[in-house]
């Protein structure tokens, strides 16, 4: 009986959440230079190498700032100076076939290269900019966005 409950528990957690990540993060800051901050629920947090990125986080770089982040599906985003990036939505659960990557490049300079979501489910990648939407089929691109 106890074993049965354990197994049900195992199946449940394996299908919903990573085992030890207390709150599922989207990715982390991997490279950083100058002033970079994360805006989370109206709070401005200075970003450091290793800072975790969560859904709805906004990343901002100062005039001397630049940063690179890697998401859990291996997608890589980099930001040049005076840039603003919003991690709108991220879902990566290959076992359930759930993929979603929705990011906003609000202003500045960016680079992107595809991770597993871009390779396995390219239609699930949405990148919004003030000039329009960028659709991607497994590749790398650079973007400069004026922000108005």
């Amino acid at each position, binding site marked *: 009986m106890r074993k049965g409950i354990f197994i049900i528990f195992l199946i449940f957690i394996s299908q919903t959440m990573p085992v030890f990540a207390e709150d599922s993060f989207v990715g982390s800051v991997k490279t950083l230079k100058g002033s970079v901050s994360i805006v989370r629920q109206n709070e401005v947090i200075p970003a450091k190498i290793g800072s975790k990125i969560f859904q709805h986080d906004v990343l901002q770089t100062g005039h001397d700032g630049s940063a690179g982040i890697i998401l859990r599906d291996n997608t890589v985003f*980099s930001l040049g100076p005076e840039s603003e990036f919003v991690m709108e939505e991220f879902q990566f659960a290959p076992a359930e076939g759930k993929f979603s990557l929705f990011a906003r490049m609000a202003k500045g*300079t960016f*680079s992107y290269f595809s991770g597993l979501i871009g390779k396995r489910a390219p239609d699930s990648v949405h990148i919004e900019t003030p000039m329009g939407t960028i659709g991607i089929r497994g*590749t790398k*691109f*650079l973007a400069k966005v004026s922000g108005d």
Partner: protein
Amino acid sequence: MTFYKLCIVGLLGMFLMIGCSTGKNVVVLLPDPDGNVGEITIDNEGGSQTLSQAGQAVYVKDSTTAPAAPVSLEKAEIEKMFREVLAIEPQPPQTYILYFKRNSTELSEISRKRIPEILNTIRTRNSYDLSVIGYTLSVIGHTDSTGDKQFNLELSLQRALAIRDLLIAEGVDPEYIETTFHGEAMPLIQTKNDTPELLNRRVEIIIR
């Protein structure tokens, strides 16, 4: 004299117009780190443009104006425009796969020898974000498939935990290790049920 002034004003105006129509927003397609070139499409209220060749760029005035026809940019031009962002790009993540003995959380001899290389990559990359994903498909048995799946789910968890513990023992900060497991749901090699396959008895470590 006034004629020259007018000319200068006129030229300045032309430069400004060119600047406005082409310089504000730009998207450049590049090959990915493996050398493959995919495709990107820029879509807005005015229309859309698709890029499919490396070095191609599209300029966009604003969200209501159709993206301009693609142009080719010189490498030097791209490097100048995106200097800071290119300099900060992280290395793409690296994946290692470790294989296990049958029905066990013990590594195969060959995989055991790869551990120092993995630790070295974690250290040289100063990695703060690891995923340890356990998989398994190993049991020969006569139980029904539900029974196997449950057993394998637990075994894949134990394998992932064994690697996680090994990394922690070597000084890797547990806070940055994410551990997941999938049982037999995601084989590397498709097999019939109840087939022993070394290549599926594995743990993947993704170093970001």
